[in-house]
């Protein structure tokens, strides 16, 4: 059953550099094995694609406020591998790796993603990313597809055991919405 976790802001005011009214990502639980994240950007698809595939660009945004990307190797072609790594303030490292399955600049890419948990890699999830451009804006859709419900639940469990690793918290945004409704 499909449920939307977060309403998008409907603001259509053109954004300028460092806009104060930020757009919001929409997180949808599509099924037991799929989570979808969508977000609109005020830029053409080729720039969103470049920002998502060039290491010098990825390093600028793919971390988070608590974790910086310190390694980013990308072999952008079908069958090409990547390795991304983030480091948090306490020095702990978070490694991701996978292989590109589809590379269709600037509208579509598919790649596998595994996360290093302790000394073993998690099962591959498939990330299916599309960039749809309209009127100079681009709708980015990231589909996180797990091999099984157990994988998703495993991610859920590991996130809890490890202090809810933000990078791997595969969640039910629905529940956030419920909690807000009840708050």
């Amino acid at each position: 059953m499909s449920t939307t976790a977060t309403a998008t802001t409907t603001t259509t005011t053109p954004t300028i550099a460092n806009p104060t009214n930020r757009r919001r990502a929409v997180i949808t639980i599509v099924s037991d094995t799929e989570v979808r994240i969508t977000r609109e950007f005020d830029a053409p698809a080729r720039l969103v694609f470049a920002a998502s595939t060039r290491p010098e660009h990825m390093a600028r945004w793919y971390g988070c406020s608590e974790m910086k990307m310190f390694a980013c190797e990308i072999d952008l072609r079908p069958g090409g591998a990547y390795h991304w790594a983030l480091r948090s303030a306490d020095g702990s490292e978070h490694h991701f790796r996978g292989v590109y399955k589809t590379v269709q600049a600037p509208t579509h890419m598919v790649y596998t993603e595994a996360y290093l948990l302790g000394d073993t890699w998690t099962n591959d999830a498939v990330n299916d990313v599309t960039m749809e451009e309209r009127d100079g804006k681009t709708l980015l859709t990231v589909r996180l597809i797990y091999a099984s419900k157990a994988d998703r639940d495993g991610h859920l469990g590991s996130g809890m055991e490890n202090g809810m690793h933000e990078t791997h918290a595969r969640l039910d945004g629905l529940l956030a919405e419920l909690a807000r409704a009840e708050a």
Partner: protein
Amino acid sequence: MARTATTTDVFAAVAEPRRREILELLAPGEQPVNEVARLLHLTQPQASKHLRVLKEVGLVHVREAGQQRFYSVNGRALEPIHAWSSRFEAYWNDRFDRLDDLLEELKSRKEEGDPP
């Protein structure tokens, strides 16, 4: 008989998709078990079983009125999950905000004739 993890842990209780559907259904207001079963195409025993699990972990309240039992969501019990999922949302929003900034920079570079 030992209690299963499902009945002791809020996170495990909501890992079951049917139970999430029930919580969603109950979010706007209380419902009797037969309505939960009807709206979600469950048998009444199935609905009762899921509701019992949700009740055991404190995710739903029960109000008895005559022959019927009305179930409603207990928002406070959802707080740990809310905190967790909020972090997921915050993570992606934070990340995309920085992508916004980068894209603005790339757009202006393009205008300067310096392709990204």
